[in-house]
């Protein structure tokens, strides 16, 4: 059996460490550091990627429902917008939300974005279900803070650094990174030649080979994908009845 052993220190080293401990105690008793943030009067400076209150921009939403699918706490429900629009937008129940921000990570359009707001109060449980129209504008904020506080590690010690500035609560959303994709047929032999992909393609990137007058030996149509024209929208992948189309990264 292995035993955990403590490294043996000499008497001098021990005495030094005791002296250091006593020295710290004496220093702290005269000029104590403190980790207390006087919250309403000052705020802790939050990082830009702080997981706080969610804001929503309907212009950027592509109705993919990805946020509702991925939400592990089931806090996001999609609600149908009124008549002329007829699209589905997310609503967030902050009674359930665990602030994992998977929804923001999964949002391909960048419609959901984070803020540094972490102190929202509700009068009753029902109000915590935040409707889409309430998510567009930030909630009413009463700022009492005059200073912002940061923790800094100096010489292995935590320090509070106070600065006379009011930290902004809103973060510029980072634009979603578009990964260029392209449609690719992975199993050409299984193609039925149904031409569904050709019909569905909006950019006209898919053409049946017959259009160029070439039929294969078995008399079956084979599709051809023009990589330059393909936008990587994935409609053909969705519609392909044999499920032999895949989206792959462009350039691979």
């Amino acid at each position, binding site marked *: 059996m292995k035993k955990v052993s403590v490294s043996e220190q000499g008497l001098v080293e021990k005495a030094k460490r005791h002296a250091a*401990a*006593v020295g710290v*105690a004496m220093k*702290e*008793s005269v000029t*104590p*550091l*403190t*980790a*207390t943030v*006087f919250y309403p009067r000052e705020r802790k400076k939050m990082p830009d990627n702080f997981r706080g209150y969610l804001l929503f921009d309907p212009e950027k939403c592509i109705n993919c429902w990805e946020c509702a699918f991925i939400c592990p706490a089931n806090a996001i429900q999609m609600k149908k917008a009124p008549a002329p629009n007829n699209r589905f937008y997310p609503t967030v129940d902050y009674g359930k939300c665990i602030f994992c921000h998977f929804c923001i990570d999964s949002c391909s359009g960048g419609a959901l974005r984070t803020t540094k707001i972490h102190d929202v109060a509700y009068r009753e449980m029902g109000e915590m279900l935040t409707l889409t129209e309430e998510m567009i504008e930030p909630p009413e904020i009463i700022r009492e803070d005059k200073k912002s506080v940061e923790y800094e590690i100096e010489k292995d010690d935590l320090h509070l650094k106070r600065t006379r500035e009011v930290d902004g609560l809103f973060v510029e959303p980072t634009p979603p990174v578009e990964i260029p994709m392209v449609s690719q047929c992975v199993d050409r032999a299984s193609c039925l030649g149904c031409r569904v992909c050709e019909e569905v393609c909006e950019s006209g990137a898919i053409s049946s080979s017959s259009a160029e007058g070439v039929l294969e030996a078995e008399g079956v149509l084979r599709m051809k994908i023009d990589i330059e024209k393909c936008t990587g929208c994935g409609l053909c992948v969705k519609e392909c009845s044999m499920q032999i189309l895949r989206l792959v990264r462009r350039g691979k």
Partner: protein
Amino acid sequence: MQIQIQEAVNQIMSAVASNQVNVPLLQPILDLVAQIPMAGFLVSFVLWKPFFAALICPGLSTLGILLLVFPWVERKLCGRIQWRVGPHEIVWWLGGLPQIMADSVKFLFQEVIVHKDADRPYYLQFPFLSFIAALLPLLFISAGNIIAIETPYAIQLMLALICLFPLFILGLGWASNNRFSFIGTVREAFMSFAYEIPFIIAVLAMIVLYGTSNPLQMSSTGGLLEWGLFRNPVAAFTFFVAAAMATSRLPFEIAEAEQELAAGPHVEYSGISFGLIYVMCYEKAYILSGLMTILFLGGGSGPAISGLGDLSGAVWFLAKTVVVMTTLFALRTIYPRYRLDQGLKIGWGAMISLSLVALALSVVIVLVQGGIGGVEGVV
């Protein structure tokens, strides 16, 4: 008959008047009061040195104030060292002082519960008895030249009384009839044996060094380099650690061990009886710090404060004692608690060796300084 009584009263009056605490600053007021028939006598009785010592300075009043204030001082000090500075919101400018009142009121008005398994008479007696026993050593502590009972055996008597404390803790732990208090009691017994022997030897070393055990003569050796701390630092260190063990506060809070034994010997206590036990460790700390001041820090010696007369020594004594007490309390923020076996190892190992070294050092110093005559003076 009446003449006899008159003579006796006069004798007492003259005895009282001859041994007064002399405070030049208060003299005009005292002269005024002396003209009032009964008040003059009462004031001169209060200022009679033995009575003043027992009742006011190092005695009951000082102790009472320290007991009231020191839990607060300890909290604030530990809070500062451990980055828990407060209060910040509610009457922050009082620094949490109202808590003292709240504590006192709580202790006074809480119900004293005697559970049915307890040994009722002992359970109720021991907290009060222990408090009284902890008061007795105060009679032999000298603040400057103010002392209640002047005897050449003062230090020995104090030692004997200090070694009486654990007995009462054992008693109240036993009377509680609770498994936690039993374990705490046994631990207390273990620890008291572990610290008492080095403690006594360290004090013995100082008695050998001074050649006297009269606190008045010990503290009259003025000058910073004449302090016991610089003449025999080993004894001072041993005494300090033994005092930390004796107060059973955090680095050696083995008997009470909050995390393991709830509160050790006094789990079952509540109300004023708990208050007395709670306060007793502060009382112990005061007495041990006072003893440390007398033995190692020159007692009430220090530059005389003009206008205070006899009280000057008392002020110096109190200041030094408070510093020692504060240091004792600050230990809890610096060191974690030792286990029982570690505590015993420290007591029976390092501490006894250190105390013997201190004793040897004292003997050597006495031999070098005073030749054979010096030793004869001790004997």
